[in-house]
């Protein structure tokens, strides 16, 4: 009873088995592939959206106006800003720059500003906050700290914007979680049900194998192999679906919207995770079902 020969048998046997049930196996592989693809599409789009919204969140900026009656010393002011917790980066807008901005906004009617004293507009700093400081309570804290700086006249930020943004992030995360959990559950359910039905159609075969003295392992190996193969093929199918879908859309994406099609992980990693999930689902599904038949 040589173990090696025995294993070879089992393998060749399971390959032959798969060929016989090839139709069922192929359809199961497609089910695995489609289900994985659906989940992956959702995952990628929601990761991309979240990333996009987080970048967009950089707009949570706070404007600090410099007091009129102090000597303008941007470098020194900058140094003191850096020491305030939550300040990520800042841009200095001088009186001149402020005026220029106003001029640009008035388009062809700059004459309105003729003779206006450049000193009328204050210099300011536009401050971007660290991502951890973007909800309304923390923004207020940062603003209070900023106000305490001796050279600061006024601190402005859009309270409404901050609140909107924080609740948007919260909502996106919840939506991704609810839909993601449902999709994951549905995927696992659909795949395991498909595998269950495929194994169920062969319960007689399992029963007979056991009656002629096959060990549980011997009975399981073909199903294990089939699960592996279906999983690999399913993983390939889902990868292909993603790649083809992306290719179909890529040419039509406006440049600034291309982020939506980003693959948030390196392609080989996506590939391996898809194939691995496929194999895991295929193998787990068939072994659990076979195990149920073996118990009785």
């Amino acid at each position: 009873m040589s173990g090696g020969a025995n294993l070879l048998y089992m393998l060749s046997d399971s390959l032959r088995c798969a060929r016989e049930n090839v139709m069922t196996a192929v359809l199961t592989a497609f089910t695995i592939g489609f289900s994985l693809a659906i989940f992956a599409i959702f995952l990628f789009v929601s990761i991309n959206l979240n990333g996009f919204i987080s970048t967009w969140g950089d707009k949570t900026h706070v404007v600090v106006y410099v007091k009129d009656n102090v000597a303008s010393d941007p470098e020194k002011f900058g140094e003191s800003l850096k020491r305030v917790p939550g300040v990520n980066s800042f841009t200095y807008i001088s009186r001149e720059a402020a005026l220029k901005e106003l001029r640009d906004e008035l388009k062809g009617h700059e004459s309105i500003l003729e003779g206006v004293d450049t000193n009328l507009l204050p210099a300011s700093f536009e401050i971007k906050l660290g991502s951890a400081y973007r909800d309304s309570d923390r923004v207020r804290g940062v603003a209070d700290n900023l106000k305490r700086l001796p050279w600061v006249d006024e601190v402005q930020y859009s309270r409404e914007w901050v609140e909107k943004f924080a609740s948007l992030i919260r909502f996106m995360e919840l939506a991704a979680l609810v839909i993601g959990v449902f999709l994951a559950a549905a995927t696992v359910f659909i795949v395991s049900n498909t595998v269950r039905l495929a194994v169920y159609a062969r319960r007689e075969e399992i029963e007979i194998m056991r009656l002629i003295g096959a060990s549980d392992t011997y009975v399981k190996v073909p199903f294990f192999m089939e699960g592996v193969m279906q999983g690999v093929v399913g993983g390939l199918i889902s990868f292909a679906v993603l790649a083809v879908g992306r290719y179909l859309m890529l040419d039509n994406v406006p440049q600034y919207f291309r982020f939506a099609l980003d693959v948030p992980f390196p392609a080989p990693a996506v590939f391996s995770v898809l194939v691995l999930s496929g194999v895991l689902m295929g193998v787990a599904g068939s072994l659990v079902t076979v195990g149920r038949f073996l118990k009785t």
Partner: protein
Amino acid sequence: MIQMFHVSKSYEGSAPALSDITLNVPKGEFLFITGPSGAGKSTLLKIMFGSEAPTDGQIIIDGRNYVKIPPADLPGLRRRIGFVFQDFKLLPGKSVFENVALALKVMGVGPGDIKARVNRMLSYVKLQHRANFKPLSLSGGEQQRVAIARALVKDPAIILADEPTGNLDPALSNEIMELFKEVNNRGTTVVVATHDRRLIDLFGRRTVMLEGGRIAGQ
């Protein structure tokens, strides 16, 4: 080889299929079990095979008490017993050759050995020309012979045959019984359940008569 003490078997919802069966089948014996339809012949063989557990009593096979066979021991026990099922139990997706070969494969026999032994066995039951057919494209008698070949091919210590000639013509039945006799002569314990009086008379071996789940005569 097989000893049963006060074995009973009841299925839910009907009278006991077997009641208080005490039976000793010494090593190398050739035993007929007979009795009317529903007498419990198949049930008795299944209990010997370990595919049904007795509700009561003790059963000792080859010196081991198998009242409650641990699941891990079942494959080993079954490899040592050749069973001809009344309803054949062939794998419909595999060819005749593969069906017979499987009995050897699960034991880990090498491929060359398998080929030789399966082909020899198929020629014994006159099915060489059907080796590559699927069971469902065989006649009833041909299927029965595949089942017999699968039970015999592994040279088991015990052969339990349930109505092995029910679908065979008298001449072929005789040949199959000769085959069992031959195997028996080489030391294998053989138990054949049959309702064919002709065979019992012809071979004149010890016969246990069941009726309503009880031994009605030996």
